[in-house]
């Protein structure tokens, strides 16, 4: 585990390569690799916020038939976010007298750290991941769920009833929506037989009919449920009750100003992008273009590194499209009432996601080879991979028939091949 934190490959390279200061000691190489990775992740954490805050303004402008920002940075106003940032940094950092100062100051950092940490386990392309955990998806959801603590503390420590109500609403909403979020996220896991995001992504290579979205009717529906739930768990409209201006002024961040206020937004946009990327990996083929031969051609002729860059671009595009859809929804649909938000979750989304989960599992149990288009890849193949390449020390003592029996036990029996 710790080895993975330190980005093994880069560290190994620094220890073996031979130019300038290199090779480095193991400790320094590890540290350098960690710094490089953290910097990369931090850039990638900040970038979505930077871009999407501008995009939100532009898109909302278009939807409302106006121009949006135009002044800063040329015709499109693309430097608007930067200008905002500069303005926010300059602002005075103040907190109300009634606030619990320590918690008030810490809360935004908690939110940012939680949503930043989630990027640790997100693969940007095949094998481009800081932390390739078997339980990657689970860890990602766990880290995302920490955001709620920051928000609740922010709401409580502000010493204002608007903030308190906003914080409590938000907490109730996020905690409830974690349930359908978890269940719908488990659907691709059940098909893939792994929680490793990298492996889930790899299984959807080839033509786009291999995407889990198109695997069977239930996964198709599951994607939309997942997307809806991510809207709510990111407190995006129409579920943005925590900061409903008409009722609660600004919700949990009513009392915040300057950089601390912007941290909440940084985190919000970053996790918007994060869940969209998650949706892309789980349902939309991750970093694969959806045109099998193209991926193969790039990998063969231009090499693995270029293929990875292509994958990276593809994933970012897919996720960004989803984010734009989120923005689009925000400016289209009216806000729900808080009781409606909770009812949507508990009375509709939870049962629906449970049903979809059961249906998907039964489908892959009884119709393992049938998908909407062509043959399904799924548990059978996964089990076969597992059985064929077990860990050296673990299954070495097992005789060959035993390994075979893992495969034959799998419902599809596909592994026998």
């Amino acid at each position, binding site marked *: *585990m*710790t*080895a*993975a934190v*330190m980005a093994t490959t880069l560290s190994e390279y620094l220890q073996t390569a031979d130019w300038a200061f290199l090779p480095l000691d193991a*400790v320094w190489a*590890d*540290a350098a690799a960690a710094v490089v990775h953290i910097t990369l992740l931090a850039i990638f954490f900040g970038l979505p916020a930077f871009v999407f805050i501008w995009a939100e303004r532009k898109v909302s402008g278009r939807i409302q038939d106006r121009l949006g920002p135009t002044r800063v940075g040329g015709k499109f106003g693309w430097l608007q976010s930067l200008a905002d940032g500069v303005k926010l940094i300059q602002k005075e950092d103040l907190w109300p007298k*009634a606030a*619990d100062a*320590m*918690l008030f100051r*810490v809360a935004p950092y908690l939110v940012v750290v939680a949503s930043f940490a989630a990027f640790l386990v997100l693969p940007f392309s095949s094998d481009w991941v800081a932390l*390739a*955990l*078997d*339980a990657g998806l*689970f*860890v990602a*959801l*766990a*880290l995302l*769920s*920490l955001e*709620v*603590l920051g928000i*609740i*503390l922010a709401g*409580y*420590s502000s*010493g204002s009833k608007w903030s*308190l109500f906003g914080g*409590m609403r938000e*907490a109730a909403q996020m*905690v409830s929506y*974690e349930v359908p979020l978890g269940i719908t996220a488990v659907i691709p896991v059940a098909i893939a037989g792994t*929680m*490793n995001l990298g492996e889930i992504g790899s299984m959807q290579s080839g033509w786009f009919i291999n995407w889990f979205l198109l695997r069977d009717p239930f996964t198709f529906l599951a994607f939309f449920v997942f997307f809806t739930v991510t809207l709510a768990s990111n407190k995006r409209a129409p579920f943005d009750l925590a900061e409903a201006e008409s009722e609660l002024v600004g919700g949990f961040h009513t009392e915040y100003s300057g950089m601390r206020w912007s941290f909440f937004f940084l985190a919000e946009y970053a996790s918007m992008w994060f869940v969209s990327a998650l949706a892309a990996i789980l349902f939309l083929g991750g970093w694969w273009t959806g045109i099998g031969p193209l991926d193969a051609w790039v990998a063969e002729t231009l090499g693995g590194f270029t293929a990875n860059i292509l994958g990276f671009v593809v994933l970012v595009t897919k996720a960004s499209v989803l984010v734009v859809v989120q923005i689009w929804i925000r400016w289209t649909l009216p806000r729900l009432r808080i009781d409606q938000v909770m009812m949507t979750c508990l009375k509709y989304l939870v049962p629906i996601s449970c049903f979809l989960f059961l249906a998907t599992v039964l489908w892959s149990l009884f119709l393992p080879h049938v998908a909407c288009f062509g043959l399904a890849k799924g548990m059978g193949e996964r089990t076969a991979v*597992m059985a064929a390449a*077990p*860990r050296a*020390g*673990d*299954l*070495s*003592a*097992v005789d060959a028939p*035993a390994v075979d029996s893992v495969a034959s036990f799998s419902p599809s029996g596909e592994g026998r091949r």
Partner: protein
Amino acid sequence: METLLFVLFGGTAAVGALAVVLSQNVVRMAFYLVISLGSTAGLFFMLGADFVGATQLLIYVGGTVVLLIFGVMLTASGPFITIKTAPSQVIIASVVGLAFFGVLFLTVLQVDWNANSARLESEYSASSLERIGYNEANVGNTARSLGAAFLGARFDEDLGRDRKELSSGYLLPFEIISVHLLVVLVGAAYLARAKRRVTRIEEE
């Protein structure tokens, strides 16, 4: 590096725990508790128990403590309730606590754990380090082994071993705990929901 991480996580966990004891404000206590539990999750990651660490984050930090903070908010009479402790009580508690910790710590340290597990291993089984996970040893990917264990099959214990009996799998607790959670949910919902109008009239 490992030492550094251990000092970081372990130190934060310890400081957080101490702060929980010393803090006078309930919500701050909850905050320190979060810090402490979160760092403990970090320790779990270091110990190669990534799934347990994630569970700790998801259920403990993201669920249980949120519940506790909710409880604080719903039962707070003032905006920031603080609890005052008498100084004498603090002194007594710290002395007793230090003594208790000393005894516990010294006893635990006195044990020669290496010799202990060496004896057990020579008698009963091979090293446990080799058994965890299907992937490379140092990645600590325990999700699959844990999943199999919850379904009752201990591939990590039994595979390739010459045994007659199956090692203990945890199918029963895994299933029965759902009944427990259901019962607890019903009980908690009963206690927490508002009294019905009928009973209120009767009481008054």
